[in-house]
């Protein structure tokens, strides 16, 4: 490896500046707060929220507003077209959003597949992560066992695509299989299948990839929560002589409820935005496309910025139920605090 240190030095210097700047900003903020009288909560809050607020404004709020405006404009954003893009989405058969069961092959539509993703990925990954976290808790090789499930999280989407290519690969019947799944099918006497071709099953095979990645996240967060359950509660339940099953449902689950909600919400939002897996594995073909993938395609490949932005706005709309739920959580928490 020809490693030229002089070429790398400026980068490392930059890294040093970054870390120093980080320390300076945080230190300065805390210093200022130390000086401020603690009763003036409003000013303290402003000081603490300012860095995050400014970054959010530039990085997310402005783009969100821009997207909202673009959604009501035409393909090259030169004029307003009102609700045309949304009308197109829900009435034009060519948009592919709604299912068309009369077509051959049947088109299940982007909305339906997205729904399937949002329904299955959070629940299945959380369930797997939870069961695994409970089962390996305090087991002899806990740390090792956890890193096995965690590993997919450490793999990039490009890597994940390659890994699953080796699982779903299809070769003609009678020839040697490269894909593990088809090898198993053949070993069991079946005929090899093209897993990613036929709907609606192909969507399920893609969802499996996302579950495989996200279960590690669920496992890590839930495991930490499980370990945080106060020992005296457990002890009390034990003295009451509850069965393990009851312990799981009556002690574990209620105790980690906040963590469960966090995991479900985070994975749901992440799933709504998913497009890498679909894009690398099927390119959104064979009826596997989801909203985020269509958004990317229309915005950046098809030169249809209006439609792309409208699809992004649809994503905003789909997250509203989760936001409302959060509002209720916050309200309840405030009532409890009183």
């Amino acid at each position, binding site marked *: 490896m020809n490693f030229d240190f002089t070429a790398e030095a400026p980068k490392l210097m930059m890294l040093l500046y970054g870390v120093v700047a980080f320390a300076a900003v945080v230190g300065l903020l805390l210093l200022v707060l130390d000086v401020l009288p603690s009763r003036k*909560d409003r000013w303290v809050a402003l000081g603490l*929220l300012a860095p995050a607020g400014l970054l959010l404004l530039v990085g997310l709020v402005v*783009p969100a507003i821009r997207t909202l405006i673009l959604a009501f404009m035409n393909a090259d954003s030169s004029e307003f077209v009102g609700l045309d893009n949304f009308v197109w989405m829900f009435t034009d058969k060519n948009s592919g959003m709604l299912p068309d069961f009369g077509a051959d092959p049947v088109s299940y539509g982007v909305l339906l597949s997205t729904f399937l993703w949002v329904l299955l990925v959070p629940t299945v990954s959380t369930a797997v992560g939870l069961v695994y976290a409970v089962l390996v808790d305090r087991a002899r090789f806990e740390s090792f066992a956890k890193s096995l499930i965690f590993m997919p*999280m450490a793999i990039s989407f490009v890597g994940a695509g390659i890994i699953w290519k080796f699982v779903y690969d299809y070769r003609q019947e009678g020839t040697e299989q490269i894909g593990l799944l088809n090898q198993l099918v053949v070993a069991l006497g079946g005929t090899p299948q093209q897993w990613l071709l036929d709907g609606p099953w192909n969507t399920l095979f893609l969802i499996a990839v996302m579950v495989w990645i996200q279960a590690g996240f669920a496992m890590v967060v839930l495991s930490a929560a499980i370990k*945080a359950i106060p020992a005296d509660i457990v002890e009390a339940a034990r003295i009451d002589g509850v069965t393990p099953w009851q312990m799981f449902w009556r002690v574990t689950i209620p105790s980690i409820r906040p963590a469960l909600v966090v995991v479900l919400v985070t994975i749901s939002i992440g799933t709504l935005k998913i497009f890498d897996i679909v894009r690398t594995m099927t390119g959104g073909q064979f009826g596997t496309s989801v909203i985020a993938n269509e958004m990317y395609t229309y915005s950046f490949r098809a030169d249809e910025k209006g439609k792309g932005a409208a699809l992004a706005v649809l994503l905003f709309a789909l997250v509203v139920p989760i936001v409302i739920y959060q509002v209720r959580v916050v309200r309840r928490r405030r009532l409890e605090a009183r």
Partner: protein
Amino acid sequence: MSTGTETVVAAPDAEVPVTAAGRVRRKLTSRTASVVSLVIALLWTVPTFGVLISSIRPEDEIKSNGWWNFFANPQFTLENYEQVLFGARSASGGLAGYFINSLVITIPSVLFPLAFCSLAAYALAWTRFRGRDWVYVGIFALQIVPLQMALIPLLSFFNEGVSLGGVQLLPAWDLDGPDKFITVWFAHTCFALPLGVFLLHNFMAELPGDLVEAAKVDGAGHAKIFRKIVLPLIVPALASFGIFQFLWVWNDLLVALIFAPGPKNAPLTVRLAELAGNRGNEWQRLTAAAFVSIIVPLTVFLSLQRYFVRGLLAGSVKG
């Protein structure tokens, strides 16, 4: 307070299982538990294992038969790793430069969000001001803004500054060379904030209020409460968020392609994506590449694990 935690941590060797999960696990016939966890572990590992095996097989073998044939007919080669590490493209040298770029990008992109998120989360959880909950829900809702839609506005913020109605309010940043890393840090930090604030706020709001109140009565200011009481308690949460942020940044391709272009700034992922070759026919190299890039995140996970696996409040302050 901390002693309480220590006792619990010391417990695994004790005969009596103290955590709920531990009890569930032990009471379930231990065989079922082992079988279920083993099945999950296998399902989660076998695909990766297959690629690990593939990465040490010759190209022709990978492309013509399944990786399990390796065991019947072991053909071993390090060629894939050689190509990944030393590069097929003479001009760009080896992987080392990209590796450093990845580190330079990732470390500040983890530190800044950690700091800003914990400060903001603290303000949202433990200070009182009107509209606090709305600010929190607003930040939470920003999670849905797709990264792709934010790229163009942010890029033009750096390159063209901010102008409104022809009046230049902020100048362009005009960064070049190593300074370009600043834009990457900036971008990653922006995109990490909503989730980070959400996660840390949830955690902080669960902290017992009387601790904070008691400190306030003692005359401690917010800075002191944050540093002395809240910060030590949220170490596991910080570690968890830190590692996830680390993974996202380390594995990110989209942001890097836009904000860190060219061999001087591009991280490992950009180089690895290039390895598939111009027409995508060299994808066998990616098998090795996947393992080269996984090493750092996995090391970080293993070394940080004790922080977030530790029972953080167990038996001490709550209940």
